């Protein structure tokens, strides 16, 4: 004797992103905190030492924020024109920044006054950075030169003018104090070796380079510019590993998360995208305006994003303790031990075992269907809670009634109110969930008539839409056919889920 098989509820797979571990990880941030700056935020950098303060460069100011404070810890206002590229030294004690005037200033994070001032660039300096030994500073300027300065003496050590356009990106190697990478608007990325006295490697990005980034292993180099993010393998002599085109406007900034070196890119299209190790987008943050700068704190505790309208948006990671609190609240249900009570009893050697048949638990509508109470089952399926929260169950019961050939019986003899609920349900879901072939016996009622008219309108619209979709499909088919004249191609492969819910996609 087989047991009763409950009604199969068909769930329609949700289109779009699937929930992965990465998505969950990157979703686990609080709502962003917004700090208004005076002008566009061009650069954000985190201090490598705890408490991981971060330096924000906007307009003529360079401000240092603590990880949790909304007010700046320290402000440097020594610049007469716009400051650029504020950057920490490896020990977090010194700070260097360029400016529109062509000056480079060096600050102590504890003090207020500039310790050093490097003069020599004839045009604006957009990027500055310490080399990893901490005694030298590198700068890239609009005068096409990149220079290395000595901190102790404040003199210029090297100057290279190999680029043919503005230098807007630079990154110093953390492992070798003599290596650094610059990216320029002349579409190239160059690797400089101070010992050699010039560039040792040139990579063609193909678009004006907005930022460059070295992986901690320094085997991989990321360059962004135009709509492209390109990853280069330095150990293979600058061979392009992958080219990503996930943004639809210029990608302005890139950074790495510290936990497992996920790549994050920000773009003028107002999105920050997170890539996994195989360079697929796993998460997406949306912002209000175009993004200019982006930084992630060590341990991914904070994501700071600077935008063109001068807003600094800071997201903090949710604490794990908060999660536990939520779990604690839920513990109102009976404890686990209630359910296993007596079930884990192991019979002793001379116990006589009487087995009891396990009662099959059925949903209410299943119980009614089991007893062939079709009208009641439909009532149950149309109960308010189920109708609103689990419309797929309602639809499944209707389909089951149709399969049993008893839909007519279930609908017979209904009053105006229950028919209204039924029709309202149909109007709401006829387009999104599967449509059921229904035959309805009606009493004469204006309400019902109006609802039916609405239903008919909806169906008419749906039919029109389907026709339009088919037309589009036909147009696409001809396009594809003309694109590949030699091969016999019959149009794109339409995934099966799409067909069921074309409407949703449309």
């Amino acid at each position: 004797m087989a047991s009763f098989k409950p009604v199969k509820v068909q769930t329609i797979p949700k289109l779009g992103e699937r929930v992965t571990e990465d998505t969950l990880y990157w979703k686990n941030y609080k709502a962003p905190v917004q700090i208004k700056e005076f002008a566009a935020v061009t650069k954000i950098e985190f201090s490598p030492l705890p408490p991981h303060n971060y330096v924000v460069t906007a307009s003529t100011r360079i401000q240092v924020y603590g990880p949790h404070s909304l007010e700046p810890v320290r402000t440097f206002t020594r610049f007469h024109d716009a400051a650029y590229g504020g950057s920490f030294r490896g020990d977090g004690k010194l700070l260097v920044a360029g400016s529109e005037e062509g000056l480079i200033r060096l600050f102590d994070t504890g003090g207020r006054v500039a310790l050093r001032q490097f003069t020599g660039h004839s045009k604006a300096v957009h990027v500055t950075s310490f080399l990893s030994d901490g005694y030298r500073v590198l700068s890239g300027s609009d005068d096409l030169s990149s220079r290395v300065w000595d901190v102790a003496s404040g003199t210029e050590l090297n100057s290279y003018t190999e680029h043919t356009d503005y230098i807007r990106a630079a990154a110093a190697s953390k492992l070798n104090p003599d290596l650094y990478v610059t990216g320029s608007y002349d579409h190239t990325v160059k690797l400089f070796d101070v010992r050699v006295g010039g560039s040792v490697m040139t990579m063609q990005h193909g678009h004006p380079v907005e930022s460059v980034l070295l992986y901690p292993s320094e085997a991989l180099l990321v360059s962004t510019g135009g709509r492209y993010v390109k990853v280069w393998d330095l150990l293979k002599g600058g061979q392009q590993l992958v080219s990503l085109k996930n943004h639809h406007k210029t990608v302005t900034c890139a950074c790495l998360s510290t936990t497992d070196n996920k790549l994050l890119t920000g773009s003028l299209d107002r999105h920050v995208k997170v890539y996994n190790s195989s360079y697929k987008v796993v998460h997406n943050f949306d912002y209000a305006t175009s993004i200019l700068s982006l930084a992630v704190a060590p341990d991914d505790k904070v994501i700071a994003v600077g935008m063109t309208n001068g807003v600094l948006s800071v997201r903090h990671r949710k604490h794990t303790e908060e999660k536990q609190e939520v779990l604690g609240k839920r513990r109102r249900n009976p404890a686990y031990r209630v359910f296993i009570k007596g079930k884990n009893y192991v019979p002793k050697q001379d116990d006589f075992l009487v087995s009891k048949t396990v009662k099959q638990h059925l949903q209410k509508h299943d119980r009614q269907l089991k007893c062939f109470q079709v009208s009641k089952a439909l009532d149950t399926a149309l109960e308010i809670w189920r109708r609103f929260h689990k419309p797929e169950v309602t639809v499944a019961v209707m389909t089951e009634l149709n399969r049993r050939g008893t839909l007519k019986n279930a609908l017979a003899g209904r009053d105006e109110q229950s028919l209204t609920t039924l029709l309202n349900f149909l109007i709401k879901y006829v387009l999104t969930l599967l449509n059921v072939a229904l035959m309805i016996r009606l009493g004469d009622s204006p309400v019902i008539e109006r609802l039916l008219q609405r239903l008919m309108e909806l169906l008419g619209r749906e039919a029109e839409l389907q026709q339009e979709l088919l037309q589009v499909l036909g147009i696409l088919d001809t396009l594809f056919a003309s694109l590949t004249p030699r091969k016999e191609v019959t149009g794109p492969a339409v995934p099966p889920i799409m067909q069921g819910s074309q409407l949703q996609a449309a």
Partner: protein
Amino acid sequence: IGIGVVIRIIVCRSSNPSDWSELSEFLLCASGDLVKVFSTSTEECVHVLEGHTGQVTGVILNPTNHLQVYSCSADGTIRLWDFIDGILIKIFVCGWPIFSIYVSEKHVGIAFITIHMEKNFQLVALHLPKVPEQEVEAREMSAVLCNISSNPGSTAMGRGGEYVASVMGRQLTVYFFKKLKTYRFSLKATDKKGAKNAFTCVACHPKDDCIATGHEDGKIRLWRNFNQKKEYTYSTQHWHHDAVGTLCFTTEGMHLLSGGVESVLVQWHCEEVNKKDFLPRLGGAISHICVSPDGQMYSTSHLDNKINIIHCSLKLSAVIQGLVKGNIWTDLMIDPRTRALVMNGRPGHLQFYSLQQDKQLYSLDIVQQEYINQEGLDQFEVMRAAFSVGGTWLATVEERGRCTSDLESSLKLWVYNEKAQSFELNTTITAAHQDRIMHMCFSPSTETTMLVTTAWDNQFKVWLLGLDSDTQKEHASWSCDYVGSYHGLQPTNCCFSSDGSLLAVSFKEVVTIWSSDTWELLTTLCQPPGPIRELCFGRLSCSKYLLGTTAKNLFCWNLLTCSLEWSTPMDVCLLRSDPLSENVVAFSLHSGNTDLFVFRPSEPRPLFTQKAVCGGKVQRCVFSPREEPLDSCDERFQWLNRSRLYFLTELMELLTFSTKAEDERILNSRKQLLVDDSVAVTPFYLLLGKHRQQQEEKQNSGVSQAADRVQPPQASVAIKELLHTPAHVLPAASFLCSMFVNSLLISNTGSRYGSLRFC
């Protein structure tokens, strides 16, 4: 040994009247021209009573000796058997085809049989002569009732043989033997409520003067006082929504059992009229119910070749399931893992039937919906199924609404779960195609898992197992990879080459060859007259050949030259290739009979031909790989060496080819199953007995062995002790076990004393 090919019918069982033995230990069941004796505790078939040459129509216990059973058959004989030992005692030759048999204690030496005489069916009393010969002519008969129904359920003996009741149309006839009087009671054709009053079955109370009749509209009437013309009474009960299929009183007459299309066993209490118990969802429609003589067990036999044995407390105790023969839509398939035959089983299920054991292994629920036992309801059916090469994946297509315009279909993909030892649903694709799926096949290549489906919507689709996201490997599901079509023609068949690199899809008259890597159309082959019916690639050394059939011709293309290699004018209705050899089998319908040809694609000359294999068209066929290859030296039968061919005829008989030598071996193995009745028959005993037998053979190899009897184990003292000591005196089984197992080991002889060997 003379070799000749015989066609052996392996499964031709149909549900038939069954009966119980005295101790409700055995169940007797008519099955084709055999009577099978099943053990109710183990569900095993203990004996097969062979001898009838026609369909067995009735089995009934001898009322005077409960160790004997009468069986009647359409071949015009009644046979008396000793079913405990499986021995034929007597044959009574009547000369007329017998449709049913009834006996009673009060009529010793008389059997009541239904025969067709003078254009209607008659119940006659046949005198069974008592003579010592085994085969007796029994010609002495007298008519009891004329114009009765041939259905065995529409006649019943009442109250130990005082009267006999029979129903036909809307009339109930009761004949009293003592008074020699006949009473007839008629019902009106219909009443105001539109009831259908025609009788369907009848049962008589064993102790009381009460007759129960079942009707077409599901009513059950209980008749009393039927020994009067006018003052008879009846009460009506109504539960069944369709015709009552069968009725049966329990031995003491406490309960009335009824069943029908609903597949619900209803137990009515005779004392309290309104009280009834149900046992639902037993299987197919109930065709027969019987009760064991001690009243402990009921059995219901179903139209889907199933017998349920039910304890009287309405608890299912055993199920005997044969090959379900309903509508077969799927191909015959062989499950590569279990080597079981797979085809449509119960509605919405696939059955896995072991051909070696002649037993259903299990039934896989494909539709996973409650089956509504109601006639004329359009429900989901499994229409297509296909296995991947290793048996890891199973694809099924289920459909509903074939007759109406709104077709609902879904393609399901099942993965074999090693842990659960069964198939689990992986992906469901609703409306995979816009129209019916015609054909589907898996790619035989091991690198990719690929499925191709062709449908009436003029497209073929390629489905791939998606392993795209590295984080979600456990949820790998199938998705559409490519949609192909050819000039808007309807694809019919599809077939992969043996290495999986080429896909052949036939579109009406055209065969298109596609590369499975790039989905590029490589070439088209066409032989105009008539659309392509079947398509199949050659195997092994013949893998460069592609075979196709039309209504008139059989073609063989060479794919290296893309040209026609040969063709013959032949109406091939079925074409299959053997996966283990180059052989291809073709069935061709020729003047009402089907001929069989076995050939290799490389040469147009058949290796083996058999004219008129069976009457009518062959529906399906399949090659089943043998467990160990046969080494037949005769050239004609070498095609049977690697695999066996099974085919299904129009009459839903499953046939196979086997050589004579093989047939004898099967018969011998069957005889070995007949075991001594002093020991309970358990699989363990069979194992042990065989072992013992081998040991004895070794000991006294000079003495010829009786093949049919296995000697009960007696050599070992430990076994003797174990079997003959009362259970309550024995020490714990755990203690005995090691001793017992040790006694089974072959002891080391002196010659190999030094070397340690484990047997």
